[in-house]
């Protein structure tokens, strides 16, 4: 256990020393500034038009405002989701592969620790880093909206948790591949998997709209191969208001009429644990 914490701390320190954390922080802040500016203009423009157009009832006006805020918050989270997943892959793609190539791993594994503890330590370090990153990006986004408008996204904690799970899944899968393949092959494979899940998600959505059974099944299979997009769809479903879902007829950019079931979430959790197990196993068996 001590070894896991030592390696986790090392992973953390590496992120700071190699300026990875700093770069992520600055770019994250830039993202928030941009989002705030964009949201401010949309928001003020909407209030202005509201004032000019034919008088509505207070309830109507408020409902419209909330639906628009909901849409733009969800859109922002969509970007946050993608960036957090990408961060998970980038942090971990080179970690084992790189240490094996450079030979720095040799002095680590010859210590009286289990090899699995190195894998788990790195996993723990990355998990904390991803949590902080998501807190900065997702949390910053929600706070921005709240400060500007007083609007709170419904079920925001569920939404952020699902995005976190998706980023952990991506990071764990990357770590697993990195225990066996080169950093480049690992990165390529993970983006391939992400792309597959992404397209599969769309095929499923189109299939559902056209009531095409095969297309829906293709989508489900792609979600089983890599559930990252399914987790996002569920997150989007959690945070989008029923009105927004009705307005987009289940075919919005970020919402879906048939969100993945809780069973898919359980599947994703098991998928993550299995990937972590395979990662330690591959790393254990490998000649270094």
């Amino acid at each position: 256990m001590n070894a896991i914490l030592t390696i986790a701390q090392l992973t953390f320190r590496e992120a700071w020393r190699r300026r990875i954390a700093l770069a992520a922080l600055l770019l994250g802040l830039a993202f928030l500034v941009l989002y705030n500016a964009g949201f401010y203009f949309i928001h003020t423009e909407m209030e202005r038009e509201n004032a000019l157009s034919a008088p509505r009832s207070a309830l109507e006006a408020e409902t419209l405002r909330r639906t628009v805020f909901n849409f733009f918050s969800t859109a922002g989270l969509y970007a946050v989701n993608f960036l957090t997943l990408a961060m998970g892959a980038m942090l971990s793609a080179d970690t084992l592969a790189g240490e094996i190539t450079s030979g720095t791993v040799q002095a680590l594994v010859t210590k009286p620790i289990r090899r699995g503890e190195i894998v788990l330590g790195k996993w723990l370090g990355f998990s904390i880093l991803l949590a902080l990153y998501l807190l900065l990006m997702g949390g910053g986004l929600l706070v921005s909206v709240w400060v500007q408008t007083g609007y709170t996204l419904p079920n925001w904690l569920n939404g952020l948790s699902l995005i976190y799970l998706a980023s952990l899944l991506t990071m764990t899968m990357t770590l697993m591949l990195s225990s066996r393949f080169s950093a480049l092959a690992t990165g390529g494979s993970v983006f391939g998997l992400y792309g597959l899940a992404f397209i599969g998600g769309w095929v499923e959505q189109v299939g559902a709209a056209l009531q095409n059974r095969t297309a829906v099944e293709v989508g489900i299979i792609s979600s089983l191969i890599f559930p990252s997009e399914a987790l996002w769809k569920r997150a989007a479903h959690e945070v989008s208001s029923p009105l927004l879902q009705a307005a987009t007829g289940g075919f919005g950019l970020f919402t879906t009429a048939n969100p993945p079931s809780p069973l898919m979430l359980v599947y994703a959790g098991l998928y993550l644990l299995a990937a972590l197990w395979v990662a330690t196993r591959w790393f254990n068996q490998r000649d270094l």
Partner: protein
Amino acid sequence: MTLAIETNLLRKEFGNNVAVRGLTLQVKAGEVFGFLGPNGAGKTTSIKMLLGLVTPTAGSGQLLGQPLGHQATRAKIGFLPEHFRFHEWLTADEFLSLHGQLYGMAPTFLHKRRSELLEQVGLAPFRHKQLRTFSKGMLQRVGLAQALLNQPALVFLDEPTSGLDPVGRRLVRDIIRELRSHGTTIFLNSHLLSEIEVTCDRVAFIKHGEVVRVTELNPLAQGETQVSLRARGLTPEILTGLSPWAANLRPDGEHLTLTVQDETALPALARYLVTHGVELYALTPQRLSLEEVFIQTVGTEGVL
């Protein structure tokens, strides 16, 4: 006799390529053991198998009485990898702390050892500098400190003097001597024969992944030694009288070569000659240099 390392026909294949054919080796506790062989002879793979970095395809082995790869035993082992590279964004202090923690050392002891070793390898003024700013020699020194943190019973040094200047090499030599005086077993892989010659008690030559010869290097214990001497007044009677000490006499005018069982015979031999009126100009034991032994043993074709 306690053995620090014992292997029996350790073998490693990578696909169709046999890296180590069958390594059988015995290293006594407390000795400095040199591991020699041409490039590609399987030295690095052998060390990696001993340390559990690489799983043997066949064969078995023990370190300090425990099977290879035994986790708890690694607490008593130190290792300086070849081409030493480490997380260069750590400072020397942080680097040693990390490795001490992985050894499971108590914080106060680790703190003390860290300072001692940084002092010993001459890096104390640089303890707060990141390793990225270190020269190759400094990296090698901090790597050496890392290998000795846990006061190991058995230390593997893979090319410890590569990249070191003469001062650094002497430092490594002194550290090895000091370790030996404390009873530490040292397994030294070096291609610098002069290095092996002055530091090791025994040396194994490996070729094609097999031990082809193990030799003692202590000159007094080396056994049969050829001696050449130059003298006047070597009569046949005197030559016959040398028989208690010497054999294979080959007189050639003022020159004579012979072999003695042991270098300890030399003073008596010299005394005999002088007391029998021989004018002795030179008496030189012809020890084969390690380089000659190396070439004799592994051949000049060298590489596999």
